């Protein structure tokens, strides 16, 4: 199909490899803001989720967070954050990626918290009892018993969040951010199908790569601890596959 030929031509074109819109530039932008957002989200969400899951308190927070996280469309969130930024800084040019990163963090947190909670809650209470009985401190119980067993589900949450973040980064281009999403936005505006397709392919490849890669990690963790129950747990609590809390780019 000539579409594929156009696509190949676009990638071959040296103009797309230099300047502000160069592929390496946009790609590294995308990876940078995604990484930043994930790091921040993990720093906030992981300890919170582990605490809620281990102590069993504030259960409602975890449940409602998941529901709310699911219901808020990321596009809406991006725009709201943009609006707030513009209000605060009276400038739309500065911090082009600021609102995006904030939105990404906000969207990544629920998956991580909820899955950490679900994963820890699913650990056999008898094992935890036994560990405490053996004289382990709470932090040791968490580290040596609960965490390894809950790891697959926690990783599933991180995987969902990562894919979510990559998707939101792409969407961020719509409100003026950088990253691979810029190609899509430009392609749509200019009716340039090759550029549109190229951007889409790159974003998709990045997201799928992250999903498959983290999925492999998740499976390895599950194989090691023999806990393949995350899918069933997800279905039983009505949340669908544990790794599929929300589709990317919502």
């Amino acid at each position: 199909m000539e579409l594929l030929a156009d696509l190949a031509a676009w990638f071959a074109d040296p103009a797309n490899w230099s300047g502000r819109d160069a592929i390496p530039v946009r790609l590294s932008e995308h990876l940078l803001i995604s990484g930043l957002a994930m790091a921040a989200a993990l720093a906030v969400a992981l300890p919170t989720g582990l605490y809620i899951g281990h102590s069993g308190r504030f259960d409602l927070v975890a449940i409602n967070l998941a529901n709310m996280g699911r219901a808020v469309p990321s596009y809406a969130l991006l725009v709201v954050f943009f609006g707030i930024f513009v209000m605060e800084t009276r400038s739309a040019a500065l911090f082009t990626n600021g609102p995006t990163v904030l939105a990404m963090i906000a969207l990544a947190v629920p998956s991580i918290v909820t899955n950490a909670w679900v994963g820890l809650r699913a650990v056999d209470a008898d094992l935890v009892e036994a560990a405490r009985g053996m004289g382990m401190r709470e932090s040791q119980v968490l580290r040596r018993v609960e965490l390894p067993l809950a790891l697959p589900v926690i990783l599933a949450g991180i995987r969902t969040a990562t894919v979510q973040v990559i998707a939101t980064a792409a969407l961020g281009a719509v409100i003026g951010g950088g990253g691979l999403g810029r190609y899509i936005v430009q392609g749509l505006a200019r009716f340039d199908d090759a550029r549109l397709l190229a951007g889409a392919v790159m974003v998709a490849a990045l997201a799928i790569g992250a999903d498959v890669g983290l999925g492999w990690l998740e499976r390895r963790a599950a194989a090691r601890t023999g806990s393949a129950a995350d899918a069933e747990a997800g279905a039983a609590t009505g949340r669908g596959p544990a790794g599929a809390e929300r589709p990317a780019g919502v």
Partner: protein
Amino acid sequence: MPEIGPLVDFPWLLERVDMLALRTAEHVWLTAIAVGAGFAISFGLALLIRRLPIAYGPITAAASILYAIPSLALFALLVPIIGRSVLTVEIALVGYTLLILVHNIVAGFRSVPAEVIDAADALGYTAWGRLWRVELPLALPIIVAGLRIATVTTIGLVTVAALIAPWGLGFLITDGFRRFFPTLYLTGAALSVALAMIADALFVALERRVTPWTRPAEPPTTPERATAAG
């Protein structure tokens, strides 16, 4: 840098209630078609998996990959092939529902206890009779939970679709952003969130109504009444 006035111009909004209603209706309509079509396809796939269990792996893997693709990218992939129309949007949306719905429909069927299936066969239900009158009602709770997730997430995805075609509440966001008009995009954002939450609440209520038999009206009568012993 254009001057940005008061954040939300309510009088302006009130003048355009019918426009807001129209956009909301469009949004609901797009969601309904996607979830409806997605459910029909997923149900068919689930029946196939019921007959051929090895199909579950491949089908789930394919749906999973589709699901991982960011919506913006998926729309963008389809535009050069199908163009910028409702069809493009619907195809992508339906694709996103598949993973959740197939998984939950299959899980729903698998949640029916083996002895209930055995009893149904022994009573003399035909294969179809058993499917519709025994397995489906018992699978309903998990299926409805899946529909709930699918609907809420689709509502979110429809906002992004506005970048392709000017439909739904997402259009308020896109248009408002383009014109640096906070009233418009904030309203679009707020309405789409509200819509998602209302849909979520409706499905929660539906989940409860669909299973009258899981909430006992009176507790089981414990020590069995001493009937005239044999």
